[in-house]
């Protein structure tokens, strides 16, 4: 009887005793979970993701919780949609359904800004290789520079699942920090004269047929040139085609609301579930966060420098600040450009131009990832 009571009591106290004996990393992660929840709830930093990620992190770091073991809730969610990349792709359908590519179609050359804004990916790839990461891990880390959470998760879950947690947390954190990271770089790289350049207003010139055919054409072109990235581009364009067709309003609405919301919850929880202390707290995690920061900075540098080149080539008709919007963080990066432009001239409205560049950045980030995967495939590495 006494023995039975003792084993019963042991069952009740084993979690606490684990915490005190070998639960140091778990305690640190519980504090990180609290910080993520604080940022999401109090500061409203990407709350849709940081709240489930933070809670998943909290759940998995309660000692002996078994939630990430076979049959555990978080493991089921992970296997259901991250291990097979379904969740990021479903989110892409929702993103496509939400985006209006009209401002990009008004001036398609803005897509080139979206290419320049991906430089951080390739710069970070070299950096990660120099720091000793294996090739596929370096590629997965570099994709943080796409400033695109679902793309980063899609690539990391396939080619570096052991780094999925730091990569996805870094990707979403830096996306949220774009309004803090970008402005100093934009100011440092432009002259006061360049910052006040007014761009000609955009004339409405896109027909409904063009908007409808756009997602099909993009899918065909990128699918032919970079087939390994077709799941990414195909899903985002499926969402956009449904939106522009106007005949499947229920599907469009479900994609951008119910499906996107449910998947975001599952995705966040599952990512949080990968943040178990003993696996997460490694020097590599800090290095990934550092490289992610550099990646976003280099995206901004390349975008603004490209803007300066275009400004020179067009005889001063393009404000170089819009180059900073050539990343995937939509519509945050476009808003940053608008705010910075108005800081130096209250009557300068760059928002529509920046929105075009920003949607170009969204396509650019997916194209960059697709091109990378296709090159890897060509080199026989995947």
């Amino acid at each position: 009887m006494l023995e039975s009571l003792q084993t019963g009591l042991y069952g009740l106290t084993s979690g606490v005793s684990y915490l005190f004996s070998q639960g140091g990393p778990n305690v640190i992660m519980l504090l990180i979970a609290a910080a993520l929840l604080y940022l999401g709830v109090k500061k409203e930093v990407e709350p849709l993701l940081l709240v489930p990620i933070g809670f998943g992190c909290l759940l998995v770091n309660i000692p002996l919780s078994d939630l990430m073991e076979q049959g555990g809730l978080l493991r089921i969610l992970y296997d259901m949609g991250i291990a097979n990349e379904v969740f990021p792709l479903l989110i892409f359908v929702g993103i496509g359904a939400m985006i209006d590519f009209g401002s990009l179609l008004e001036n398609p050359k803005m897509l080139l800004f979206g290419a320049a804004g991906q430089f951080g990916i390739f710069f970070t790839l070299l950096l990660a290789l120099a720091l000793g990461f294996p090739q596929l891990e370096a590629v997965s880390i570099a994709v943080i520079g796409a400033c695109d959470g679902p793309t980063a998760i899609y690539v990391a879950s396939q080619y570096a699942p052991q780094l999925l947690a730091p990569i996805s947390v870094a990707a979403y954190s830096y996306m949220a920090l774009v309004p803090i990271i970008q402005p100093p770089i934009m100011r440092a790289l432009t002259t006061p004269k360049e910052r006040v350049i007014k761009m000609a207003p955009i004339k409405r010139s896109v027909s409904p047929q063009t908007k409808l055919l756009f997602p099909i054409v993009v899918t065909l072109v990128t699918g032919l040139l970079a087939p390994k990235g077709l799941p990414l581009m195909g899903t985002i364009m499926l969402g956009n085609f449904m939106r522009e067709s106007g005949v499947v309003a229920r599907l469009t609405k479900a994609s951008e609301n119910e499906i996107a919301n449910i998947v975001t919850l599952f995705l966040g929880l599952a990512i949080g579930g990968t943040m178990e202390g003993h696996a997460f707290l490694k020097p590599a995690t800090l290095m990934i966060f550092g490289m992610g920061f550099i990646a976003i900075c280099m995206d901004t540098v390349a975008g603004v420098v490209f803007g300066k080149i275009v400004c020179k080539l067009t005889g001063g008709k393009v404000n170089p600040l819009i180059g900073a919007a050539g990343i995937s963080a939509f519509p945050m990066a476009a808003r940053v450009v608008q705010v910075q432009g108005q800081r130096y001239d209250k009557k300068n409205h760059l928002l529509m131009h920046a929105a075009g560049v920003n949607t170009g950045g969204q396509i650019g980030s997916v194209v960059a990832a697709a091109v990378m995967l296709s090159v890897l495939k060509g080199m026989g590495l995947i």
Partner: protein
Amino acid sequence: MDNAKWTFGLTMMIVGMGGTFLTLWILSLVMDLLKKVFPLVKAGSSEKK
């Protein structure tokens, strides 16, 4: 960084960045073409004055 890693990194940089620019440039041309083939018809523009 050893030679193989440099080769890999620089290949990815050149082909990756170049491929991204090329793909997006082609897309921009196709989008321009689409706009030409399907121009915006302003409401009332087909009516005779």
